[in-house]
């Protein structure tokens, strides 16, 4: 553990860099994918096209995407904008289908009832569709968060610092402990974000806790 004892400040600094790359990418993915998913859920033909395109985008490997993005958008190669854009592309590609499914999982009768009691279509979206879609949206966001944190490490290959720098630096200098610390720290960051999202989901859907227990007793009575 000598390496870690000497360089824990460096690890913390890289963890911060890592978070500054992955958290914006996850937030942008959600902000972009939810409206697209909603639209895809409403219009079937468009939805098919969008999910098909998303599957193909997801198929493009990470390092090539990091190199193609600067050529298309005109960013400098070694910039955090390149990494955040690439990760947002993956996040959106993963999340669009889940978002469409999430809105599809909302009971149509509940939506009709909301309209019947006088909600405007906009109000139905904010007060009925979106809250009821949260459980499925959240499961998709957790997948995106974990894979984003893991993918940020690739940025080190084009020279954008993050926990991936421990992998490249440790490999080049032959310090196994540094690489191992990089792997473990990346996994820890991913698990912490995952846990935070899980807790946020619980806080956002207070109704999801009690009814499940009553459903279980109903099942037991049968």
């Amino acid at each position: 553990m000598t390496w870690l004892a000497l360089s824990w400040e460096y690890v913390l600094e890289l963890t911060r860099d890592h978070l500054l790359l992955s958290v914006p990418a996850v937030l942008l993915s959600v902000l972009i994918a939810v409206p697209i998913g909603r639209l895809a859920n409403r219009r079937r033909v468009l939805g098919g096209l969008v999910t098909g395109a998303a599957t193909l985008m997801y198929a493009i490997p990470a390092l090539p995407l990091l190199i193609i993005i600067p050529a298309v958008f005109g960013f400098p190669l070694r910039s955090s904008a390149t990494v955040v854009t690439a990760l947002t592309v993956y996040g959106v590609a993963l999340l669009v289908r889940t978002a469409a499914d999430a809105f599809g999982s909302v009971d149509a009768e509940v939506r009709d009832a909301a309209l019947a009691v006088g909600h405007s279509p906009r109000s139905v979206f904010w007060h009925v569709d979106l809250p009821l879609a949260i459980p499925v949206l959240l499961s998709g966001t957790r997948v995106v968060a974990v894979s984003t944190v893991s993918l940020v490490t690739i940025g080190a290959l084009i020279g954008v610092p993050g926990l991936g720098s421990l992998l490249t630096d440790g490999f080049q200098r032959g310090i196994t402990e540094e690489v191992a610390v990089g792997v473990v720290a990346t996994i820890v960051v991913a698990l912490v974000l995952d846990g935070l999202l899980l807790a946020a989901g619980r806080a956002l859907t207070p109704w999801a806790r009690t009814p499940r227990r009553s459903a279980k007793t109903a099942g037991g009575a049968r």
Partner: protein
Amino acid sequence: MSLLMDAGAWLGDPANWSGDNGVPTRTVQHLAITGAAVGIAAAVALPAGVLIGHTRRGAGLVGALSGAARAIPTLGLLTLFGLAYGIGLKASLAALVVLAVPSILAGAYAGVQAVDAATVSAARAVGMRPRQVLFGVELPLAAPVVVGGVRAAVLQVVATATLAAYIADYGLGRYLFAGLKSRDYAQMLAGALLVAALALLLELAFAAAQRYAATRIADPARSDRNDTRTVQKGPTS
């Protein structure tokens, strides 16, 4: 956009299409290491996944493994293997096999596990042996999901094989790393476009294979006539 033109010029240069560092050789290397890694992983993970799905024991293990696999940075796995085995093919192949196993295992498990228990009982009731139930009922019905698992593994491995060039002089990823080192953006971008095209082609091929598995193998209405005949032959002979 001039960057893309430079990459186009690089791709159009005949000098880049011959010899040990030519596009055909590099592409064949890339496909060879992908195929080898997925092949080895499938040899281990397919039987294991089918067994777990069939007996429904150890399902938690599959879930934990595929969840953990998503969190492990692929570059970390490659560099750890690179340090352990030394630079070269062996290290990258080992890392790629490890990466391919969880998707294949999860696909095989989920596919077999999702087969309706009543269908399996019916197959036993009409007198099929365990082997016949597995190969004639469970596996065909599970085929689309099993192929889906292999598809995910191929995508993952073909992408990570690019990074394998970081620890071995092998595959299309070499253009990216050589370009990064020498700041030769045209070569880097050309390599990136080649890898992306290869990945997209494989994705489309496997999507077609998965559709084939769903419509021709798993759909009972259209299932192979030969199979039906052998089943019908049973009672009469």
